[in-house]
């Protein structure tokens, strides 16, 4: 080995030992704001643009018309917007359920809190469905015994909220707030009978303390998002005409 070689070796060792000798001495952490003070990267912006335009074009395409504005606070025990949602889940959901099982849904129960926006007077677009139902919840059909359906009626009588139910159910409370009559398709609820109740997966899993879905005879997952139910329902109607009615009421005397 020449001196040159030794020097080279030393240099190599030096570089090596430097790396291995590095110690973490200081850490600095901070949070950086992303806001209008930061310029837009044009390449990224140009890349997003066609996606944005396509989404917006679809979201803003007119699919129906609302002659009035509908809000979930329009009624005490039932509202036009809630009735529309429950009836839409019945009409669209039953098509899928019937095709798969040959059976029919008896009625639908949703929750008042699940109506996330008003429907404004004017054109209805897919964006309306995204606003009313921003969550990904989807339709489930549960086979319940009449006894549990009666528990559900007791729950509704105590909750005293306009939890949406479909038009096949008629629930009347007396002036004390107890169930005075409860019928499905005009027939009183039969303790022994099995009912096919459609709802969403959130409530099925105990959301809003709706514990009456368990135990059950069977569960049918329709893989059909509530939002898509609404979009499909809107597309079939030139004009929406939801009404507050007598499906869930309380008597004054």
């Amino acid at each position: 080995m020449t001196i040159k070689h030794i020097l080279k070796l030393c240099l190599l060792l030096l570089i090596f030992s430097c790396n291995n000798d590095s110690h973490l001495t200081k850490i600095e952490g901070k949070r950086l704001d992303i806001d209008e003070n930061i310029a837009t990267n044009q390449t990224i912006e140009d890349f997003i643009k066609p996606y944005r335009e396509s989404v917006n074009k679809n979201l803003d395409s007119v699919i129906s018309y609302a002659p009035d504005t509908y809000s979930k606070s329009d009624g005490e025990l039932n509202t036009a917007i809630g009735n529309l949602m429950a009836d839409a889940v019945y009409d669209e959901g039953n098509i899928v359920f019937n095709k798969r099982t040959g059976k029919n849904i008896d009625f639908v129960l949703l929750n008042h809190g699940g109506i996330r926006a008003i429907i404004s007077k004017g054109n209805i677009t897919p964006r309306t469905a995204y606003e009313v139902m921003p969550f990904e919840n989807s339709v489930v059909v549960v086979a319940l015994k009449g006894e549990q359906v009666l528990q559900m009626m007791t729950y509704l009588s105590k909750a005293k909220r306009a939890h949406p139910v479909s038009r096949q159910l008629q629930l009347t409370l007396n002036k004390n707030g107890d169930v005075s009559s409860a019928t499905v398709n005009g027939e009183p609820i039969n303790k022994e009978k099995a009912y096919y109740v459609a709802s969403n997966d959130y409530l099925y899993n105990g959301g809003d303390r709706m514990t009456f879905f368990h135990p059950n005879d069977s569960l049918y997952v329709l893989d059909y998002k509530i939002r898509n139910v609404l979009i499909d329902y809107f597309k079939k109607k030139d004009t929406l005409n939801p009404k507050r009615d007598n499906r869930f009421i309380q008597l004054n005397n």
Partner: protein
Amino acid sequence: MKRRQFIQQSTAATALVGLGGLGLQSFSATAKKITILHTNDVHSHIDPFGPDDGRNANKGGVARRATLVDSIRKENPNTLLLDAGDIFQGTPYFNYYGGELEFKLMSMLKYDLATIGNHDFDNGIDGLYAQLPHADFEFVSANYDFSNTVMDTHVKPYKIFVKDGIKIGIFGLGIQLEGLVDKNMYKETVYNSPIEIAQDMSRILKEEQSCDLVICLSHIGYNYKKYPDRVSDLNLARATKDIDLIIGGHTHTFLPKPTIEKNSAGKNVLVNQVGAYGLYLGKIDFYFEPGKDVKADGASIIV
């Protein structure tokens, strides 16, 4: 360990002898800086919030994040950009394109690594798998076992980066899926306990792989006030050792600055999370200096 130090010291001494006074000068020039940038729970928020938004008006936006990341990378090329999961779900972009745009944009921003959040299963594990060709970055998760799923071999427990000679080991952790995600969505994905896995990972990365930095990319949540014993980033920090930084997600916790927690060996661990929706970018700089002794509880921390 003792032996290695001895060898290092003796080789350094040899080098100094060989090169004379030159050595000291070149040492001081090798101080190093590693920058870790991170996001979490961006939830498909690609566009900035509109001017009328009640809470986040004019905030966020991927095109702005790109500008910020670019300028930081220019300042320090030894930068890693990480995401702690829940990339998907939250705007119609996800509903229309299934996550394609999110992954393409993250690739354009040159994300280095991400972990998987519960919402990344929202189109099912098949929906996540279908978008993988659009991601130029990799995914890590050490406690999800994907062996019996389509994601098998596409997610590694950890990844090691070497930046400017500094070895950075990053492992991923995911949240319990049962009760949070429909079984039809995550299918045969198996969830393993994050704490034990993290203890194992930090040992592998620190002792076997000799990493200079160990980072946990977590989607288990910062902490749960009502359930203080539930596994969380803070509990993880206390129950493990040799992790330098935990980057979290899931709980949408807007930390104004990183939290400093003591690990099981009494050393400092940094825990950070930047809320959600791409409103902020987290930035942690690690400074390395050669041959300098460090205090018993670790490096000095400025937050």
